[in-house]
């Protein structure tokens, strides 16, 4: 993982989402340690590392289609968490839905992050 590129993508996300971005972390699944982030939240890293593992296992056990590029949880207090697992990494964002321009988030930011992730991993 090229951390310099990773941080560049992260800054772009911060700029696109502005104050709607409450926190974000990127971590390695194996050790659940954040390698890049903004308002980094170790609890969120541990929590969503665990949740992502559970979802993957449950879908597989249930013989349901596997998780692909992301999942979204609508949370109370006008918050939303977006999780993008990618091979051995996970990118998680906690977003204020009152402040977020969801159109940009869903149609530009998410595809952009996934594309950048794919590019970084391919390099």
């Amino acid at each position, binding site marked *: 993982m090229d951390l310099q590129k990773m941080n560049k993508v992260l800054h772009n996300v911060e700029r696109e989402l502005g104050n709607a971005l409450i926190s974000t972390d990127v971590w390695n699944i194996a050790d659940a340690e954040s390698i890049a982030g903004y308002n980094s939240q170790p609890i969120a890293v541990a929590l969503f590392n665990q949740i992502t593992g559970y979802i993957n296992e449950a879908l597989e056990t249930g013989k349901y289609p596997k998780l*692909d590029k992301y999942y979204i949880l609508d949370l109370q207090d006008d918050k939303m968490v977006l999780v993008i697992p990618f091979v051995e990494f996970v990118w998680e964002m906690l977003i204020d839905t009152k402040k977020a321009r969801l159109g940009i988030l869903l149609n530009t930011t998410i595809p952009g992050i996934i594309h950048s992730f794919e590019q970084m991993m391919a390099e």
Partner: protein
Amino acid sequence: MNKQTILIVEDDKKVVELLKETIEEIGSGCNIKIAYNGKEAVEIFEKEKIELALLDIKMPVMDGVQVLTELHNRKIWLPIIILTAYSVKDIEHKLLEFGIVDYLSKPLDIPKLKKRIKEVLKNREQKDSISGMSLAAILQVLEMEQRTGVISIKTDKNSGRIFFKKGMVVDIDAEGLSPEEALGVLLDQASKDQAISIEYLEHRRKERINKSLTEILLEASRLLDEDKKEGDKGQKEVKEEIITPKIDKQDIAKEIKIDIQKLSNLIDRSKEELGDALISAQIWSISDGEMFVGYNQQPEVSELFTQITAYLNEALNTAEFPQLGKYYVFNLEGKKLSVTIPQGDFICGMLIDSKKTPLGLLLKVVLPGLIASFEEAIAS
């Protein structure tokens, strides 16, 4: 109709011929079986699937009423048209107990007989088999739609029938229990793994119930509670071995509170708004996984997403993170989106083709409307 079988149970060979000709004239292509006495008839009923029986009452060896009793004891239920040369009044009360379709006096009114046979066969063809929907919910739908017919439930332990006329439950028959007790047993059994079948046909079942559906559901619940308490006191009777009361008042109340029509409307609305992007949709109860309504239902989904929802709630709560809100979405392999909307004791789950629905449209336009409708249906 060509796979259906009609059994003629009649000792008079001339009448048998007349009945055979009548059935053949209808041109239904049915198989016709003949039994010349009640005993032969019972043997055929045991071995073969019969869609309709034309049953004479006065016969040697075993008469028609004895046949009905045997069918009742063996829990074999099917539409029966009684043919009799005798005063029906004398046996009417017995016949009504069996929920027969009709009784015709000899000499037979052939046009009327043909009409009744056609009706029954048509209804048997259209027989609805339902699984994954609670019995209480089915009764509510039938009440709303003011349907007439019979629901049959058969399990390893119990079986019974519920007779309804114009949406009103008029009698419930199971194990010789009172209608309320019988309903308790059937609700309990119907919540398990067997299918419930419904036949929409005119019947002449005598009315034994004159309460609203809500009243009888609550009464069934109360009686089950009482039986359970008596059992706890060591006063268990044989009857209680048949009744396994696992439904409590909360379950019944839950089932009568939910507005099935609104849930159906919700599914219809999903279909309208998502068009062919909607692969499947279903609404189920978290507590027992019972499916209420659905489109292209996937029974395995309810258990899976009930577990995932419970896990998410617990994990978020334990981590003191903001709690799960109104929905969650999984982007799945094969260009699919799984949308889950937990609402109180219920979950609405949908599988959507992500190629056909932009995520923004789904989350900003479609989902808020569906969630509002779901909340309204549950609250009502």
